[in-house]
């Protein structure tokens, strides 16, 4: 029971209380770009969730090895980067093997692999192992944090997409603010709301 509680508490904390995209700015550029192309959202979100969960879990397991317990930040970078690279390469090879006789065009395969690359090497994915290490999450919590990061990314992307639609259709926005500047302002307001959830003092 306590394992489930740990898993959900970590996931919900990452999703709502400390939405990584809004409260920390992790993966915000990818969230904006994905929100502008909503067709890619499903695939991208699944990949981000997959990479963040697997990387988070593996890094946590490696960090349980006694040698790493006294390791400093530099070793953490090298370890986590290597884990992420290995996870990505194995996934890419699996995709290539699976699609070998499937009749997919080379362009489609390349696009899928490119998507996998962008979603794997993303700050929101890479941040999760560091957060686990810093907060000293347990294994279930690390899995919860990984899944939570993916779900937080989906929620952030959908919220940004909705805002973009409104901004796009609003002709009262001054020309200089249209497009990117208005989206930045909109994300700032959303980020302010999520920062408020975390209990930080917003002003003064």
């Amino acid at each position, binding site marked *: 029971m306590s394992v489930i509680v740990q898993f959900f508490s970590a996931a919900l904390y990452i999703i709502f209380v400390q939405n990584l995209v809004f409260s920390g700015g992790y993966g915000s550029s990818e969230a904006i770009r994905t929100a502008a192309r*909503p067709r890619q959202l499903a695939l991208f979100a699944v990949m981000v969730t997959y990479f963040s969960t697997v990387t988070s879990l593996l890094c946590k397991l490696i960090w349980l090895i006694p040698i790493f317990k006294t390791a400093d930040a530099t070793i953490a970078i090298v370890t986590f980067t290597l884990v992420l690279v290995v996870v990505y*390469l194995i996934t890419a090879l699996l995709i290539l093997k699976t699609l070998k006789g499937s009749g997919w065009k080379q362009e489609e395969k390349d696009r899928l692999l490119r998507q996998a690359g962008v979603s794997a090497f993303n700050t929101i994915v890479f941040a999760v192992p560091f957060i686990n290490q*810093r907060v000293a999450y347990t294994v279930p919590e690390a899995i919860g944090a990984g899944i939570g990061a993916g779900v937080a990314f989906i929620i952030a992307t959908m919220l940004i997409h909705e805002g973009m639609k409104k901004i796009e259709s609003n002709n009262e926005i001054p020309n200089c603010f*249209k497009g990117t500047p208005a989206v930045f302002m909109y994300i700032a307001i959303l980020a302010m709301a999520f920062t408020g959830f975390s209990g930080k003092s917003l002003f*003064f």
Partner: protein
Amino acid sequence: MRKQKSSIDKVVKKESEASSFKTEMFTEAIVQNPVLVSTIGLCPVVAISTTLKSAILLSVITYLTMIFSQVLTASLLKKFPQWTRVALYTLCGMAIVAPYMLFMQKLFPEDMIALGIYLPLLTINPLITRQCERVAVKSTVKHAFVNAVSSASGYSAVLIMTGLVREIFGSGKIWGYNIFINHPATALTNPFGGFIIIGFMAVALRWYFKKIDPQYAEELAIHSRTSIKKSRYNKDKTSNEKIDENEPQRFEPNKEIEKDIDKKEEKPELEIKENQVVDQEPEIEKNQEISEKVAAENKKIEFTSQELEELMSKSLDDIINGTTNENQNDVDLGEEVPEK
């Protein structure tokens, strides 16, 4: 409807052919600014550039990783498949960030703590992947180096400006020294403060584009990376394509006038067809009248041989004095004559 490409787009095309440093710098740092136009690498900008010092430390590492990755890609990684290159860029980033962290631990331990987990995250910078795939893979080492410097400059400029503004208004300090702001807005040091600042910086850049190239600014407003115009939700919406009539527009030949001119030029050819003579008699008469008038006008400016000889015999001063005295008000001086 096919849109006419802006002059800045043409500059972008030209720079790929003849990559002079200035055009490269202008294109990568300003026209295609990674943060304000392309919305890439926002995380370090909004999260950690809260002081000028941290922004400069981040800028240094951005320059190092960009140059190292792009030069290595242009020299060695071209033959690797694209999906493996992406992983190699991350390893390149790690090769720079890890020693940099050791260096910072010794020299700036406090700043190292302040940067927290964001410093390791610089290992993964989407800007590196983008520039390597877009430019370095297809170009020479020299061009990759120039491109790395220029795009890193654009990124660093935004980092430093954001850091400076946030330090002044968020902490009431510059480089750690107090400046007399009684109630600094500490909220600006949060990520949402970063988003607000880069939002206003993007507005300032758009305003600059509006001055140098209104069409490009208009295109950015409609077709920016963040635009969802092409998405399935918004296919039919064209209401945003309004152009402010008060704004200065680039000179374009009026297509309707051009069409009229073409029609007028074609008319005489049509009217001299033999089968249409009876039907078009009134028009032929009109044309004859016009041609007679034109001939009469031409006669007026013809000189007889006597008049020419008289003109030749007059001295140049007489002619000038004569004309200036008669038509003094009509003379267009053009540029001002500098005083002696």
